[in-house]
């Protein structure tokens, strides 16, 4: 199957699915948006690039809905050691000195187009999937933690201790590095990441997930209309996660 034909087919499927699958619970708040329908036996292609848009003006200071949802989805229980406990997503408060203005935003793996973590990985465990999701193949990760040092966003964590009761959706184990995987299993099954789902459910609607390559997707339309900044855009990593209001 040619990539071109594949793309047009997907775009058609995406549009029809979006019409059928989007439920509006309030103006501007979508409960569920299906961007594309991929059969189980089909490999992901670069015709899609998954991304996220976060509107910091809607992100409430003190709210940790997205973090809670992520922890629950991935079974991220800590040992009460904040410096080394695993985090895929965390809330950061930004304070501007001159004005004292504060804003709160969720920080996670930015799913760069040219990820420094992939550059430095000696085994190829840290890789970028064709659809833009940056992952760690824990089967070949040797736990050297170069990627943790290379990441400008402090997005990665190392599992220091033996784990038990991992969830089916998130296999994780001692001696490997891990980070946000955009809930890749959900995405492959036409779902959206747990954090975005929780943010929408909590009526904040600060996070949009979708296909950056599709000009008709909600995220692309929002980016076209209101713009979206990359954090540390000077590094020219072309991040998949964009922010508004920073």
């Amino acid at each position, binding site marked *: 199957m040619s990539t071109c034909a594949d793309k047009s087919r997907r775009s058609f499927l995406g549009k029809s699915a979006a019409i059928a699958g989007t439920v509006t619970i309030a103006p501007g708040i979508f409960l569920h948006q299906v961007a594309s329908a991929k059969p189980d036996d089909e*490999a992901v292609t670069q015709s899609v690039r998954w991304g996220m848009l976060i509107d910091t003006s809607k992100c409430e200071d003190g709210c*940790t809905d997205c973090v809670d949802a992520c922890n629950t989805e991935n079974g991220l229980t800590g040992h009460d050691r904040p410096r080394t406990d695993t985090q895929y997503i965390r809330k950061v408060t*930004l*304070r*501007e000195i001159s*004005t004292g203005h504060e804003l709160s935003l969720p920080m996670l793996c930015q799913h760069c187009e040219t990820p420094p973590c992939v550059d430095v990985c000696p085994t190829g465990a840290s890789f970028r999937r064709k659809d833009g999701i940056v*992952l760690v193949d824990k089967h070949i990760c040797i736990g050297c933690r170069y990627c943790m040092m290379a990441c400008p966003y402090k997005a990665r964590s190392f599992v220091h201790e033996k*784990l038990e*009761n991992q969830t089916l959706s998130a296999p994780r184990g001692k001696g490997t590095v891990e980070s946000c995987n955009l809930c890749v299993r959900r995405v492959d099954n036409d779902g959206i990441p747990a954090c975005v789902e929780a943010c929408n459910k909590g009526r904040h609607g600060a996070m949009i997930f979708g296909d950056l390559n599709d000009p008709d997707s909600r995220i692309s339309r929002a980016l076209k209309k209101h713009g979206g900044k990359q954090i540390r855009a000077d590094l020219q990593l072309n991040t998949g996660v964009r922010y508004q209001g*920073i």
Partner: protein
Amino acid sequence: MINRLIQFALFLAVLALLPAAGAIAETPFPTIHVPEGKGVKCVQPEEEIKRNHMNYILHQRDETMHDGIRTKTYSLAECINCHVQPDKNGHIAGIESDEHFCHSCHEYAAVQIDCFECHADRPQKYIRRATVKATSEQGLREVLVARGAESGGMK
């Protein structure tokens, strides 16, 4: 002469006992618990899957990880869904237990498996999923200071 006869008789007796002693020392064949309730056949003939299951799973592993192919036929999760079922008392044998489908054979063959260091050793419905609240660090303590747009800081 009688002594020699006795010695010979003893030698014969020892020879006769040796196979029995060998049988006692032999590791008993593992008890493989046939999955109950499902009543479906394995995805490959038994002999084939016994010898080559690792290749099927390894192949699927790379396809799933790197290409997002999530067919169920050779998925480890599906092996577990079928082969790990609760016993009559509703108890699920974990990977450390001799009763676990994978463990019983691998213990016998002295082949260590690492799959379950990360992967769930039981079907999803038997995993308790706890709600995990954010720690204070993940929540709000991290405060970054920006000097404003023109001087850099958080771009």
